[in-house]
């Protein structure tokens, strides 16, 4: 299944060294190697393929087969910089070739035009670094289209009246509707809202040598065993490998980027699988390690020229972390939905994408989806209504009745960028390699919580309109666990208020680029991967143009 790869020596000065092989890194590897460059991708996790993936909940969820392991890489958490952080699991990300795109739910909404210019439209928000992007939707539109066609997104163009303009339809029809989708669609229309088939990065028909979705029901948190989920692993890395110019080097844990005396990046230092220190040389470095590990790597790479962290003259590396706000309501219906079959989401709506702050009393907006993303064990542990006995006959009876009859409505929304919300290095806690661990500092902006609860009321109304026999809501709470890792090396024109420019080049180091969730200036409305991938396609074009005119080696 894996094509032959070149084996570069660490002393070979390759054209590009990419740190991380996830949503952004995979696409940059594909694009840069296709454009003729010699590329090495260093991925800290293992190289697993479809035959390694499994429905075993213990292996995947308890033993972290696909994800960062809390024992190897412990983390700490605190709400505010005044507190001392306590060790606790603060985040999850995919730690394998393909990164988080291997185990995600695959909701693939584009950002809308407003997401890039919202600061200008609604004005400053006290206590936040709310800003416009240095690019607009039109700059990114061709790249959203590339994601849909080259990575593989199912959907129905024009189905939502709120959708931004697009240059091409989706390459594939939407996935089939689930019972949760039908209940959601009918109820939302009754309430005057505009539900539509969810755009998903899952194949609805065979494409590019990959199988269509077989609706096995193990999507969120699991790797796809048939290659239907459009991960970087199956949709980008394999294309990069086929160029014959790209080497994917798994089990390579980068912990330092080195500069020469002229202040240019010369490559990266990493631990190989045996924990020996290696140095890969490169003409330019692109860090795509995710919104937590990218700032951590820069902070670990502090040197004499950059005592506060590499490319951190702004002091903003790791700051303005956004997680997306969220809340959830659940309903139980008379007849079986069997929503465990299939992918998670089949219907969504965007009527509340831009709420009027004067009307609702807070900033924000979002989208609602109909879903069922519980595994059987996960459902028994957390999918039953409040008040259900936790064991015994009452527990079993409820489990038996509810498993096939339950659906969720998930409310996804904005997070405001607050400077103190951040990833930084824990002063005490170390990982298994002896490196400073990630410390997360996070306290949701009050508007984010208000938004989650406002949307949850709409979700509750929707469940009533759908005829739920029982419903309950899990209110928005201050978050202590991160899944979406956004905004920590933000893009901008001003080197004082941002870390990278619109080409993803760091303001401080000419041949060092960053592209992943850390690049985002605002949070969007909850589904960031599509935008991370569009940014990666665009960054590849920009970096190629700079390289071709000799602007990286000057």
């Amino acid at each position, binding site marked *: 299944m894996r094509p032959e790869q070149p084996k570069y020596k660490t002393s070979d000065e390759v054209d590009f060294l990419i740190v991380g092989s996830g949503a952004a890194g995979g696409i940059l590897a594909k694009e840069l190697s296709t454009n003729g460059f010699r590329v090495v991708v260093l991925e800290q996790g293992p190289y697993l393929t479809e035959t390694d993936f*499994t*429905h*075993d*909940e*213990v*292996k995947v969820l*308890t033993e972290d087969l696909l994800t960062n392991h809390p024992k190897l890489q412990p983390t700490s958490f605190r709400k505010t910089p005044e507190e001392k952080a306590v060790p606790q699991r603060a985040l*999850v990300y995919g730690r394998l070739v393909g990164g988080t795109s291997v185990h995600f739910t695959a909701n693939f909404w584009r950002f809308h035009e407003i997401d890039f210019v919202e600061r200008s439209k609604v004005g400053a928000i006290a206590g936040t670094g709310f800003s416009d992007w240095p690019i607009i939707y039109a700059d990114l539109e061709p790249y959203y289209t590339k994601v849909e066609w080259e990575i593989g997104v199912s959907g*129905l163009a024009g*189905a939502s*009246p*709120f959708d931004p303009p697009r240059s091409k339809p989706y390459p594939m029809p*939407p996935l*089939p*509707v*689930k*019972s949760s989708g*039908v*209940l959601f*669609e009918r109820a939302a229309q009754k309430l*005057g809202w*505009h*539900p*539509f088939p969810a755009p998903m990065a899952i194949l609805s028909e065979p494409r590019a040598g990959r199988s269509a979705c*077989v*609706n*096995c029901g193990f999507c969120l*948190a699991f790797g796809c*065993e048939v290659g239907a989920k459009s991960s970087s692993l199956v949709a980008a890395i394999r294309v990069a490998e086929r160029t014959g110019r790209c080497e994917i080097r798994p089990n390579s844990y980068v912990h330092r980027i080195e500069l020469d005396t002229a202040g240019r990046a010369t490559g990266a230092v990493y631990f190989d699988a045996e924990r020996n220190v290696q140095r890969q040389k490169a003409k330019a470095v692109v860090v795509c390690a995710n919104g937590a590990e990218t700032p951590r790597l820069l902070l670990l790479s502090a040197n004499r020229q950059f005592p506060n962290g590499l490319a951190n003259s702004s002091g903003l590396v790791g700051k303005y972390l956004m997680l997306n706000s969220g809340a959830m309501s659940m309903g139980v219906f008379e*007849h*079986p*939905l*069997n*929503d465990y*079959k*299939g992918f998670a989401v089949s219907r969504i709506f965007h009527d509340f994408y*831009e709420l009027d702050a004067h009307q609702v009393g807070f900033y924000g907006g979002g989208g609602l989806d109909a879903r069922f993303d519980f595994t*059987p*064990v*996960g*459902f*028994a*542990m*957390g999918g*039953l*209504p*409040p008040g*259900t*006995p*936790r*064991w*015994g*006959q009452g527990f*079993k009876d409820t*489990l*038996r009745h509810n*498993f*096939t009859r339950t659906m969720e409505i998930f409310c996804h929304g904005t997070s405001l960028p607050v400077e103190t919300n951040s990833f930084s290095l824990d002063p005490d806690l170390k990982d298994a390699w002896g490196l400073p661990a990630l410390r997360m500092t996070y306290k949701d902006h009050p508007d984010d919580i208000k938004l989650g609860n406002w949307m949850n009321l709409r979700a509750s109304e929707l469940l009533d309109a759908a005829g739920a026999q029982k419903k309950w809501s*899990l209110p928005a709470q201050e978050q202590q*666990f991160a899944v979406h890792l956004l905004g920590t090396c933000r893009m901008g024109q001003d080197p004082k208020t941002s870390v990278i420019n619109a080409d993803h080049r760091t303001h401080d180091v000419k041949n060092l680029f960053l592209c992943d969730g850390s690049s985002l200036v605002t949070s969007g409305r909850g589904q960031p991967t599509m935008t991370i991938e569009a940014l990666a396609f665009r960054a590849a074009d920009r970096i190629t143009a700079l390289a071709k005119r000799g602007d990286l080696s000057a």
Partner: protein
Amino acid sequence: MTARIIPTDDLPGAREAGAVYFIDRALTTFASEDQQTYRNGLPALLGKTEEMFPGVRSFSAATPDQQDQILHSFDESGQTGRRAFRPRGAQTFFETVRTHTIIAFLIDPDSGGNRDGAGWKVIGRERAHSFQPPFGAYDKDYPGWQPAPDRTEKTKT
């Protein structure tokens, strides 16, 4: 104990799913750190049995009703919690056994627990690895996607 956590009725319970055997294996593999919890917990269970029902010589010798009363005295947390992204962090003896029993009952049968798919029979999950629509009662007569009637008039707000 597992048989009281998920009892047998007209459908299989933890006993038929082979939960005890799964837990035995778990304690030498993914749950090896919980061995001490069991080592401390099982004598405590016996002690509680003797304290609550003098003359009953072991937990398994107690009647189902007595067993439930004993387990209630161990279960301090009351009701179902908020959903957790991953089943982890069980601490007390009772909570550990409860978690392991649920895993043993509902894990994918190909993973070494949930003997004969007993747990999935109870919750109504078919055992196939692929499914075709219609999936459930509400999508079976779905006519195909229709836009909301007013959508042509709708503008962005």
